[in-house]
């Protein structure tokens, strides 16, 4: 059975290779091939899942050693896989949602002449992501880690003819590289500390290592997570990443890739458990990002950017939870999965809306769409309810647990974090309601496109609606399923471990508070956007709004702090290289040339001066010999 594990990766990888090398021949059915391979991988996943359920909790984790990758003395990097409950959760999420989104893309990209390449990239992404989650050592994980970075680079910049897209892609990759730097340093630290970077030895040896080292490793891992999961301070790329086709935003920048950071932290629980300082850093990052994303989400008029903000904030929740340690790991993953469902659903819905509105993204130009695209409306609505944590839907359970855990951290920390989470919940409700209302309700604010005709929205083709429907099922029931008898908790516990914190509030009070906050947010949004008419041109708004529209000045800050000094430095160095170093060398050459030119003058061609020099020479010789004699 374990022999299936490599196939998880192999199937989509083969698909990518085929589609890229296959050439035009595959244009007709390439997309179906890719979808089939994704589905196949999902099938493998299910098979392994059932196999895993067949064993009892302790023996569910299996490893598969494929071959020794880089054997250098003292340095053993293997291509080995580990499939435990945590990986399995991700495998199913990735392949499942991935397959659905492949399906969706078949319709969405129907009219793009480079569709084959698009699907190749999607398959490549699946392969890399799967490799990331089933790798058995950090170096292999690193391969998948950068692999998804590459895939997201290719997909964000898929419409390369748009300079904005190309720039966004590069930005995403470079920012991620900063995170990757953290990961590689972490690996080096592990190697220097444990002489290995495979999971088992590192986790086994962790308790021997000094806390300082562990904290350092933890912080580096956090840096990596920030990069991949768009957490403050490396969040700036996610908003621009929306330049990519919507399925990409749904799959990579909402459901799977951006959650890799959470996976990394949870996976390294053994290290974080022993490094409280590192955990604190994680929690702080999570809380800040949670609010940051939420605020940004409130101000955006671009529907995808608004959703991106919400993604950021939701992942903030997860990171927060993961930072709480054993109290929160399971809930982090749980929220991750549910979020995977409903956020993917929301994005697909947004895509479907754009599809119907000839790629209009400005919500202020929507309105009253519910009548025209019912399926989209319903699925999107369910996703909406799920994300704001409407009681009974999946978001309710997962988020509620996280907030509880935050309070359960105990002490003032606990209070602060809990309150942050609550506020976040309220704001989430606010901006999601805003999105909902602006898009589907109110009067039509449709604008004519450049060809001058008003859009006539229509429901999307079957290939697009089916995935949305399936995902909405997930967003409705997943939470309940997981929460039922804490099934999810017990499922993950062997990997992450679990401990109940001491919550100052009873779980019911927390639930009540959460719901109240949610209702408050919804109410406020209702008043602002349902009751009062929505202006087509955005009002100036408060300074905060304006800042939020500019992603709270993140880009301006990056520019001021990094880009401008960097380019200045580069320019200086270029000057130095050509004028300084080369100038010195050329100057030397010129000097020598000049000297020899002067020396040449001695050769004046007059016999008598030659004779003179001969005579002088003889004189010197004789004199010196005589002197030698005399002394």
């Amino acid at each position: 059975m374990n022999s299936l594990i490599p196939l998880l990766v192999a199937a989509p990888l083969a698909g990518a290779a085929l589609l890229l090398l296959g050439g035009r021949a595959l244009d007709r059915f390439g997309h179906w091939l890719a979808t089939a391979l994704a589905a196949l991988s999902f099938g493998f996943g299910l098979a392994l899942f059932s196999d895993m359920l067949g064993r009892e909790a302790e023996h569910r984790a299996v490893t598969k050693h494929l071959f020794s990758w880089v054997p250098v003395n003292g340095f053993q990097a293997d291509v080995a896989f580990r499939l435990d409950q945590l990986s399995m959760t991700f495998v199913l999420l990735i392949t499942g949602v991935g397959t659905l989104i492949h399906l969706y893309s078949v319709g969405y990209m129907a009219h793009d002449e480079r569709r084959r390449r698009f699907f190749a990239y999607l398959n490549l992404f699946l392969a890399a992501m799967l490799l990331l989650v089933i790798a058995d050592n950090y170096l292999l994980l690193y391969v998948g880690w950068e692999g998804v970075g590459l895939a997201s680079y290719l997909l964000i910049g898929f419409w390369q003819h748009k300079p904005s897209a190309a720039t966004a892609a590069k930005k995403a990759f470079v920012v991620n590289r900063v995170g990757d730097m953290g990961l590689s340093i972490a690996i080096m630290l592990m190697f220097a500390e444990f002489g290995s970077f495979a999971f088992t030895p590192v986790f086994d040896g962790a308790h021997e290592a000094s806390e300082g080292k562990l904290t350092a490793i933890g912080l580096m891992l956090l840096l990596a997570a920030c990069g991949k999961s768009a957490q403050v301070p490396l969040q700036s790329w996610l908003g621009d990443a929306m330049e990519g086709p919507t399925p990409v935003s749904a799959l990579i920048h909402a459901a799977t890739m951006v959650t890799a950071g959470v996976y990394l932290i949870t996976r390294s629980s053994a290290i974080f458990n022993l490094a409280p300082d590192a955990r604190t850093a994680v929690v702080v990052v999570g809380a800040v990002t949670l609010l940051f994303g939420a605020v940004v989400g409130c101000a955006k008029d671009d529907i995808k950017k608004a959703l991106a903000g919400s993604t950021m904030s939701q992942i903030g929740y997860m990171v927060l939870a993961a930072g709480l340690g054993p109290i929160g790991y399971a809930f982090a993953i749980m929220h991750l999965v549910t979020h995977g469902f409903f956020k993917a659903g929301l994005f697909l819905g947004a895509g479907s809306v754009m599809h119907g509105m000839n790629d209009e993204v400005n919500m202020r130009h929507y309105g009253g769409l519910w009548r025209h695209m019912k399926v989209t409306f319903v699925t999107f609505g369910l996703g909406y309810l799920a994300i704001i944590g409407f009681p009974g839907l999946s978001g309710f359970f997962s988020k509620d647990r996280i907030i509880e855990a935050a309070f359960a951290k105990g002490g003032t920390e606990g209070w602060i974090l809990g309150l942050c989470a609550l506020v976040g919940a309220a704001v989430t409700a606010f901006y999601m309601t805003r999105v909902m209302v602006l898009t589907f309700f109110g009067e039509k604010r449709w604008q004519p496109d450049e060809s001058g005709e008003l859009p006539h929205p229509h429901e999307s083709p079957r290939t697009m609606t089916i995935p949305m429907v399936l995902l909405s099922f997930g967003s409705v029931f997943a939470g309940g399923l997981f929460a039922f008898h804490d099934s999810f908790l017990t499922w993950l516990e062997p990997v992450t471990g679990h401990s109940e914190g001491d919550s100052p509030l009873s779980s019911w009070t927390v639930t009540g508070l959460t719901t109240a906050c949610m209702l408050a947010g919804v109410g406020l949004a209702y008043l602002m956007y349902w009751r009062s008419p929505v202006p087509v041109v955005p009002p100036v708004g408060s300074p905060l709004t304006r800042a939020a529209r500019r992603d709270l000045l993140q880009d301006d800050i990056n520019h001021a702090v990094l880009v401008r000094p960097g380019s200045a430095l580069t320019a200086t160095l270029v000057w130095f290289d050509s004028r300084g170093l080369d100038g010195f060398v050329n100057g030397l050459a010129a000097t020598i040339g000049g000297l020899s030119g002067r020396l040449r003058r001695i050769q004046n061609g007059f016999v008598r001066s030659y004779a003179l020099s001969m005579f002088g020479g003889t004189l010197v010789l004789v004199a010196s010999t005589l002197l030698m004699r005399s002394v």
Partner: protein
Amino acid sequence: MIAGLAEATGTTSTGEAVQFWVLAVVAVGGALGMLLMRKAVHSALCLAATMLALAVCYMAQGAVFLGVVQIVVYTGAIMMLFLFVVMLVGVTSEDSLKEQLKGQRFAAALCGLGFGVLLVAGIANAKLDHFTGLSEANAEGNVPGLARLIFTRYVWAFEVTGALLITAAIGAMVLTHREHVKAPKTQRELAAQRVRDNLQVPPLPAPGVYARHNAVDVPALLPDGSPAELSVNATLRERGQVRDVSEDMQRRMAELENATADWLGRASSERPVVAAPRRSLEPAGNHEPEEGEQ
């Protein structure tokens, strides 16, 4: 007496001393003269004097044969050779005394001085108190002694020098002799040539015409009083030994012409331009030595 002179060991007889001082003065004087004289001829003569003095010195030191050879070969042959060349190049041509190599004179003086000092110091340092005279070396006479050496120990060098001399002679010939690549032009051809490029149809003017005194180195005067360089021998022209006609001569010619003109009442336009240099037929310089030969 010469043989006797060569006997002395530690010192020399007063006779030789006297002789030496006289000869030394002559030799050095000659050398300096050669160095300082502006005309090559004078230098040559001074050098000859020096050589003669040296010849006597040789004899005084028992090198009779060398003394004779010195007089015959050097003073006789070589110096004459020099004189020939000097004549060929120009007896009276002088070096301009201004030095155009910067610092050459000074450096030369310095080197010479230094060298002299060195040599003198070297000789002074050497222990040269005991002189074994040539009495027994010259026992059977100087010439046989030399001959024995030359034809026994130095025979090889002797042969080589012989070869050297022959080579030198041939070399000299090769250097000075020049093949005529094309047959020399005949009088007829030259005449035809002159007519063709209508520069100088009549034969060259004879020198000394209208000259105050009849000499080869005085150019003829053309009707307008300007000197005709052509009338002087090419070699003299080469050496720059053309004696120029005095200015007043030309001036008087001009006055004469003008007076005639006044008397005849010619218009100024018809008057000959006074002392206008006639277009010289051949600018001196591109004068081929070949013609100098013919």
